[in-house]
């Protein structure tokens, strides 16, 4: 117990000595203050005392509470905590493990009656503590802003703490491994940032292929509908042409004094002759059929690519999707609809093919349908494996 308390006190002292820790904290305060300055009224956006009228984006279209939650999720958590503050946290903590294992320092710690794994994990937790404190302060301040300004006391907002902490820990496990292997802060920092960029690209590729696939599926649905309509149009016209030909045959037979002929079987050429628009209708149907076939091929290919990216993402941590969990919790599907309306979703839909569904919303729905277990569970499994490997190397290495 004495040893654990000693290590935690040391962790606090280490954080306290880092200027970036305080800089990040001050910046967090500034951002929350800016957050509190922004509001929404019946006319539109309100910044301090100034109001900026925006039709469709006012308290008439979305509630004040939803506005603040949206700002917190999309700017506070997704931009500040998940990107800017995260970069500052990685920069601040990248030196923790290299400094710890550097010659002259590690011998002293290892020569004490404390297990190597416990020692290493405590150092690991020190870095997590950095982020935990930052996010906690930011979340408490945001909770107060949303409560006092938006009138919604939203305790689920504190989920930002484990979520952002989780995302940071996905990255820090790589930072710790590289720091241990190279004993270089620069190498640990650069490789962690590269890993993060790789995760970002992987996620972007997944989202892009999913969006294109969804768009293609929407297009295919529209093509199928058009094909059905074109087919019925063709059948209607052929029916009319057939009737015309039968009528003509009846008239010819009556003129010749022959008995009324039975309805004949007419060739396409005869039908086309009866209705000169038929070839065009048939050609249009053929074109739609061809487009549909192409769309099916494209979707098969996109599905293959997207499946590949999803498999790759299953192995690696999912930083963006983990952060997205906060939005899932705080912004419901109904909220999402009303936000889509507020941001002009109806107008966009009006300009689009009425046969096609709203692809953005559909992509968002598909992303939201991915299970929390898959997002967090596999990411934590990756972190666990890397952490186990790092602990194993640390425990077995001679210093």
């Amino acid at each position, binding site marked *: 117990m004495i040893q654990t308390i*000693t290590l935690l*006190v*040391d962790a606090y002292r280490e954080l306290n000595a880092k200027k970036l820790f305080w800089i990040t904290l001050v910046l967090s305060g500034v951002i929350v203050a800016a957050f509190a300055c922004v509001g929404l009224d019946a006319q539109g956006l309100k910044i301090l005392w100034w109001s900026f009228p925006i039709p469709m984006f006012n308290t008439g279209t979305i509630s004040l509470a939803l506005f603040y939650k949206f700002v917190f999720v999309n700017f506070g958590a997704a931009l500040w905590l998940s990107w800017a503050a995260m970069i500052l946290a990685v920069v601040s903590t990248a030196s923790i493990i290299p400094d710890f294992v550097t010659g002259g*320092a590690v011998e*002293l710690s290892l*020569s004490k009656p404390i297990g190597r794994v416990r020692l290493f994990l405590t150092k690991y937790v020190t870095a997590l503590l950095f982020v935990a404190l930052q996010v906690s302060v930011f979340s408490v301040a945001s909770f107060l802003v949303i409560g006092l300004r938006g009138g919604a006391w939203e305790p689920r907002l504190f989920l930002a703490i484990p979520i952002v902490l989780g995302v940071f820990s996905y990255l820090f496990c790589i930072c710790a491994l590289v720091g241990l292997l190279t004993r270089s802060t620069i190498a640990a920092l650069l490789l962690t940032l590269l890993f993060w960029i790789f995760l970002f690209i992987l996620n972007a590729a997944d989202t892009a292929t999913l969006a294109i696939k969804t768009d293609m599926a929407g297009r295919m649905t529209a093509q199928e509908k058009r094909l059905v309509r074109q087919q019925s149009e063709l059948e209607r016209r052929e029916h009319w042409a057939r009737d015309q030909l039968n009528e003509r045959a009846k008239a010819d037979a009556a003129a010749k004094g022959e008995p009324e002929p039975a309805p004949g079987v007419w060739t396409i050429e005869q039908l086309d002759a009866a209705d000169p628009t038929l070839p065009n209708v048939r050609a249009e149907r053929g074109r739609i059929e061809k487009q549909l076939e192409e769309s099916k091929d494209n979707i098969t290919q996109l599905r293959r690519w997207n499946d590949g990216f999803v498999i790759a993402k299953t192995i690696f941590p999912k930083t963006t999707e983990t952060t997205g969990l906060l939005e899932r919790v705080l912004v419901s599907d109904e909220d999402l609809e009303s936000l889509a309306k507020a941001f002009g979703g109806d107008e966009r839909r009006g300009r689009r093919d009425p046969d096609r569904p709203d692809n953005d919303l559909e992509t968002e729905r598909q992303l939201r349908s991915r299970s929390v277990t898959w997002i967090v569970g596999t990411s934590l499994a990756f972190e666990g494996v890397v952490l186990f490997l790092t602990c194993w190397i640390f425990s077995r290495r*001679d*210093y």
Partner: protein
Amino acid sequence: MTATPTSAVSSSPRAAGWAVDLADVAKTYKGRIHALRGVSMKVGAGEIFGLLGPNGAGKSTLVKILMTVISPSRATGTVLGHPVGHKPTLARVGYLPEHHRFPDYLTGAQVLDFYAGLCGVGRADRRKRRGELLELVGMSRWGATRVRSYSKGMRQRIGIAQALMNDPDLVVLDEPTDGVDPVGRRDIRNILLEVKRRGKAVFLNSHLLSELEMVCDRVAILVQGVVASQGTIGELTEGRQRYEIEIADPRPPIEVLRAIAPDLAAAGKLPGGEAIEHTPAMLRVATADAARVQPLVDLIRSRGLVLQALRPVRPSLEDLFMQAVTDPSTGHVLDPGAADDKQGRAARTGGGAA
């Protein structure tokens, strides 16, 4: 690992209470670099033990094995009665590594507090000992200053205080006087003697032979991963003492000897068998017994020659060290560094592990 007493170092009267009792400690890096090749040694409670050797001899490796910083390839023995590598025992061991680096965000007092805390020392004890030890190492005024602003000597002093914070039964110090001024060195010597007086064992690793000579009860000389010699300085110099004779005569001493006793000069030894060596300034008789030299002295005086000086001389630790690191077949100093199979330097077996 079990304790296996070794007879080679059992000359000390301490039959029991060995603070360190090592047998056959070996460490091989990358399968070919033999840093340690079967080291055995004992350090008694209440004694200061000096470990010396050239660079790369394996001294730091041995110390790090004791402190569980390095795992041995093979080791039998105990530290404070527990097998080497037993972590809880380290609560009773104080350690100052060579080139140590304390977290620079801590003050001197916080350094003491932190490492004592890792040893499991309670808060009240830490506070009490912190003040006492800062006083002991002359750092009371600097306890609240961050270590990043300390000089090398101040860091060494804090390092020694750190090693004593847990009131250890065994103190392992790797180059404790490195970077310390003469006053500081004297202070550190006094601290070590005080630790010894309290019945604790001190395991000292140093290049400064004169420092070791002043405080160590016993020493071991490590060369290329084996103990070349080990014992008290008296034991190690036994049989190597000599008498130096200076004659007030313009001729070289050997010429004088040839003139007064040609048979002794030709034999190169006294009738009793004691070897006579000569330098341009003096004659040397290899004996520790003054009575053995008297016939030669009488002979010199009987020929009317003036005896300018007659003094017993004991080899210094440096002499012993140089002898240990010199290849007897070539007379050259052995290469520094560990024995490396690839470079073919593993052939040396002389000296023998004690």
